[in-house]
């Protein structure tokens, strides 16, 4: 059975696209055939983050409106077997996303893929609604910061009331918290909301905590999903999240700052 998962947040800039790319790539590395769809019509970026921007010919909107076949628009990742990207349009606007069109594409993808990851735009307008409407599960990407937590709470309300599952009175969508840009040192100093605070407020289970890591920017600079840099903390944290998504029990890492011993200091310098 295939799973449709929306990666959403309400607030912009919290790491939705980075997380959709990392988790999509991680699922493919775990042998699941995965397609990541960009729902941010007019502000296409998943292609750039995943390094396939020069290979876009047709897009999601062409498949919905212009009679282009799905397989003409899907881009196969050259690094990871079983990973595909469905880019969106950079020139059209969100009205080009029709509910019937999105449904048709998702149903067709379900025939072939194990996981369909919907990368939602920021905000609570049409693109965001379309990205979450058909989802079975949601990954709510949140930064430990007041505006992001408030917006995540708002999105949780929308997931519970505006999705197809909610409209049909089906069992509610499974919701997961993905806390990103977690700065361990600032948390330790009491300058940043800690994981427990965010969990207490949003009251949904934790899928993962991604520590603030310079490697994330370097990977997006290079058009590489973070998980392809397996030594970095963020990649390990994303892979842990992927394993939890697949049902494994994995203990949380990177939630307390590393000890500042002389040996660690030496190791850090030589790395």
């Amino acid at each position, binding site marked *: 059975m295939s799973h449709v998962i929306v990666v959403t947040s309400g607030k912009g800039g919290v790491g939705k696209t980075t997380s959709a790319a990392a988790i999509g790539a991680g699922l493919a590395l775990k042998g699941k055939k995965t397609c990541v769809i960009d729902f941010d019509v007019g502000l296409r970026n998943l292609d750039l983050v995943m390094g396939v921007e020069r290979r876009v010919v047709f897009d999601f909107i062409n498949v919905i409106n212009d009679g282009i076949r799905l397989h003409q628009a899907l881009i196969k990742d050259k690094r990871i077997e079983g990973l595909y990207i469905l880019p969106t349009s950079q020139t059209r606007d969100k009205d080009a996303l029709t509910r019937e069109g999105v449904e048709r594409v998702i149903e067709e993808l379900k025939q072939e893929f194990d996981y369909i990851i919907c990368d939602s735009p920021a905000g609570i307008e049409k693109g965001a609604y379309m990205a979450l409407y058909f989802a079975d599960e949601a990954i709510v990407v949140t930064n430990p910061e007041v505006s992001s937590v408030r917006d995540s709470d708002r999105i949780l309300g929308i997931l519970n009331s505006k999705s197809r599952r909610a409209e049909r009175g089906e069992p509610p969508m499974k919701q997961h918290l993905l806390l990103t840009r977690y700065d361990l040192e600032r948390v330790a100093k*009491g300058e940043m909301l800690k994981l427990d605070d965010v969990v207490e*407020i949003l009251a949904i289970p934790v899928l993962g905590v991604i520590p603030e890591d310079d490697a994330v920017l370097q990977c997006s600079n290079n058009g590489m999903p973070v998980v392809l840099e397996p030594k970095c903390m963020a990649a390990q944290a994303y892979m842990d999240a992927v394993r939890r998504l697949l049902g494994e029990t994995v203990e949380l890492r990177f939630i307390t700052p590393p000890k500042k011993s002389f040996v660690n200091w030496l190791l850090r310098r030589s790395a």
Partner: protein
Amino acid sequence: MRLKDFFELFRGTTARQPSSAARAKERLQVILAVERPLTRGQPDFLPLLQREILEVIRKYVPIDEKKIKIEVEREADMSLLAVSIELPHTALSRAL
């Protein structure tokens, strides 16, 4: 530990003041307690409430639609609904 933090330990400032993270958590809990009932499916009933109150009062006293004011003050564990209606100075003279 930076030098500044070291001195702060002695001054006890970090212990006395609540951390900004604690303040963030508290503020979020308050605002979400207010917003959740409004954003999780319940319609905003205040405009309707205002109209109905106005209609009831009009049965007895002629009042100007613009002279009614409804305010809600929200806090974590309770809300205060304040309705103030300005009556024309002749309105109550007959009743009294």
